C-alpha cells in the first residue's frame, strides 16, 4: 500500500524531470515541442546499453545520457527551430516517432522489439539502490528532482532565463535587443532534452528493462499535459502537474477500484480533464509566475 504510493511518487519524479525540461522549452521559450519521449528513450537506452554491455554504473552513464540527449536536442533543434507553433509540434512529434522506430529496428544495438533486460541496479558506494525497496530509490529520485529544480529555477531567473522569456514574448524584439535567438533556442532545446535523458536513465535502473513501446508519443503528450496542468513557465507548478497527472493515471489502482471501473474509464477521464482544463483554466492550476526583481523582491517572494 505505502509502497504503491511511493511508486507513484517515483514515477511522478521521473516525469517531473521531463516536465521540467519541457517547461524550459515550451513554458519559457514558447516552442511547442512534442518529443520528450524521444529524449527519454535515448536516455533510457544509453544507460541500458552501457550498463549491460560495458558494465558502467549509473553514475557513469548519467552524464552520457544527458549529453547524448542534448546532442540529439541540438540535432533536431538546429534545423527545425525556425518552424513555428503547430509545425514545430508535428516535426518534433515525427522526430520522437523516428527515435522509437530506430530503437525497434536496430536489433544489434538495442535488442529490437525485445528490448534490453536485466539492467544492473544503481549503487551508491557499495549500497545498492534497489528499486524494490522504494524508499531508497525515491530518495534518489527526489534528490535528482530537487537538484534539477534548483538548477532550472536558477536558470530561469538568470540572464538566460530572461532571454528565453523575451524570445517567447517577441522574437523580433529580442533579436533587436542583441539576443542571439537561434543560439538560445538551441540551448533551451538541448538543456530541456538533457533532463529528459536523465529521467530516462532513472527509468532504466528503476524498471530494469527497456522496450521501445514504452516511449510512444503518448508519453510526450502526458508530459505536455503536466506542464499545461501545472502552469507554464513555473517549475514548481510543473512538478505538481506531474504528480497530479500520475495520480490520475493511477486513480483506479489507488482507489482499489481497478476491477470495478472499466479500464477505459481512466483514459476517458484523462481526456475529459484535458478538455475541461483547457476551457476552465488554460493557464494551469497554479498559473504563470513571473519573477519580480528589484525593490519588491522580498515582498513578492513572501506573498507567494
Amino acid at each position: 500500500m505505502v509502497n504503491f504510493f511511493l511508486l507513484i511518487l517515483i514515477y511522478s519524479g521521473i516525469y517531473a524531470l521531463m516536465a521540467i525540461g519541457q517547461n524550459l522549452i515550451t513554458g519559457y521559450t514558447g516552442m511547442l515541442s512534442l518529443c520528450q519521449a524521444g529524449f527519454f528513450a535515448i536516455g533510457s537506452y544509453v544507460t541500458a546499453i552501457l550498463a549491460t554491455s560495458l558494465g558502467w554504473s549509473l553514475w557513469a552513464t548519467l552524464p552520457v545520457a544527458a549529453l547524448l540527449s542534448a546532442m540529439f536536442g541540438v540535432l533536431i533543434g538546429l534545423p527545425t527551430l525556425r518552424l513555428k507553433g503547430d509545425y514545430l509540434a508535428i516535426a518534433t512529434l515525427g522526430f520522437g516517432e523516428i527515435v522509437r522506430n530506430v530503437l525497434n529496428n536496430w536489433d544489434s544495438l538495442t535488442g529490437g522489439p525485445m528490448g534490453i533486460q536485466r539492467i544492473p541496479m544503481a549503487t551508491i558506494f557499495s549500497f545498492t539502490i534497489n528499486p524494490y525497496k522504494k524508499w531508497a530509490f525515491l530518495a534518489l529520485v527526489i534528490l535528482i528532482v530537487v537538484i534539477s529544480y534548483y538548477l532550472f529555477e536558477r536558470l530561469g531567473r538568470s540572464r538566460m532565463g530572461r532571454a528565453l522569456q523575451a524570445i517567447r514574448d517577441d522574437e523580433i524584439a529580442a533579436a533587436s535587443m542583441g539576443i542571439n535567438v537561434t543560439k538560445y533556442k538551441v540551448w533551451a532545446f538541448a538543456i530541456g532534452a538533457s533532463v529528459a535523458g536523465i529521467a530516462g536513465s532513472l527509468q532504466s535502473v528503476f524498471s530494469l528493462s527497456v522496450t521501445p513501446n514504452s516511449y510512444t508519443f503518448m508519453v510526450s503528450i502526458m508530459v505536455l499535459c503536466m506542464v499545461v496542468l501545472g502552469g507554464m513557465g513555473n517549475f514548481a507548478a510543473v512538478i505538481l502537474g506531474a504528480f497530479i497527472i500520475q495520480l490520475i493515471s493511477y486513480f483506479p489502482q489507488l482507489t482499489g477500484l481497478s476491477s470495478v471501473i472499466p479500464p477505459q474509464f481512466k483514459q476517458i477521464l484523462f481526456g475529459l480533464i484535458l478538455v475541461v482544463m483547457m476551457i476552465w483554466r488554460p493557464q494551469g492550476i497554479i498559473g504563470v509566475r513571473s519573477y519580480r526583481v528589484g525593490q519588491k523582491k522580498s515582498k513578492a517572494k513572501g506573498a507567494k
Partner: protein
Amino acid sequence: MKKSLLTVLAIVMIAPAFVFAQGDKEEAYNVGFIGPMTGDYANYGILCNNSAVLAVEKFNEAGGINGTPVTLITEDSEGTIEKASSSIEKLSSTDNILALVGPIFTGSTFSVADRCQNEGIPLITPSATHADITKTGDMIFRTVVSDGLQGEVAGHYFYEVLGHRKLAVLYAKNDYSQGLYESMSATFESLGGEIVAAETCLVGDKDFKTQLTKIKAAQPDAIYIPNYTVEMAQILEQAAQLSVGAPFVSCDGFSNPEIYNLAGAYTDGVVYVGPAKVEASDAFNEFAEEYKSVYGIEPDSFAINAYDGANIILNAIKTAAADGKATRQEVRDAIAATKDYEGVGGIINFAENGDLVAYQGVYKVNGTTPEYLGAFQVVNGKLVKVD
C-alpha cells in the same frame, strides 16, 4: 486562485486517503492479473483476462477455498513496462496477491517476473514466449511453449514433412513474432533451407501489399507468418488480392478462431503449428461454449492458456490453504508440484525451470475448419511424431 489551490489540495489529500482506507483485508485469497486492457494491444489482454475471470468465478461457485471466495484483481499494463511494473507493485503491496496470471507480452513479463521473483510471488504467463523468461527464477512458470520449442518443430515440419526449401517470412517487429521467426529460421536454415525474403511489419499495420509484392517476386515455396490474428487475416486477404500463389504456414496465433471471421475462406490450406491437443475434450468444449456465451467471442490459444494457468493457481492455493493459511511460497511449491494436470488445452506439466512441457500440434485448415495432423516433438535434432 485560492479556490483552485484548494481543489488541488483536496485531490492530493483525498487520493492517498482512499489508499489507506482500503486497508489489508484479513484472510483474503487474492490472485492478480496483468495485461494490456487499453491501447493498441488491448485485445490480447482482454481475451486472457476473460479466461481468468471465468476460471475464478467457476472456482468460487464450486465453493472457493473452504467457503472463502478467491478474488481476481485485474490491472492494466497498457502494453508498457512502466504500467506493468506499477501494476505488480500495486498487486503485491496493496492486494497482497498469492499468485499472478500474466503479463501478456514478453517485454513487460521480464520486468514483472524480476519483481515477482524478488517478492516471492508465483507467476504464470499464458503467452510470453521468449526463451529466457523462465530463467528469471523458480517463481516463474508458463502455460505457453517457449519460442524455441515451437520454432524448432515448425522449422523441421516445414522442411521435412511439407518439403519446402525456400521460405519467405513476414513477421512483426515485436518480441513474440520476431522470436518465432528467429527460432524457426535458425532450424530451417540449419536443415539446408533458405529464407528468400524476410519482411517486417508493425503490430497494428493494415497494409501489407508492399511486403507481399516483394515476397511474390522472390518466389518462395511457402510464406511463414508468425504473427497476430488480425494481421494474419489481413495478410491472407491481401495476398489473395495480389494473387500470391504460395501457400501460407503459421504459428499458434492462428489458433484464435477469430481468424475465420476476419479472413474467411482465405484461411483455406494454411498449415500452422500450435498447442498440441488431447482429443477435443469435454472440458475444452464446455469451456469454449461458456466463454462464448459470456463474452460473445471465442477464446484464442492464449486465452486457453490463461484459463489453464488460472486454474492451476487456484488449485495450488487450495492445496496450500489445506492447513488453514496459504503463503506465496506454499502456492509456488504447489504449482511446481502440478503433475499431469488435465487442462482444457491439454495435459500440463512443468519442467524444472518452469517451462511448459508440451508437444507441438500441427493443424491444416480445410475451408475454415482446422484439421489436427498430430503432435510433434524434436528429439536429438529429429522430428518425432508423438502418439
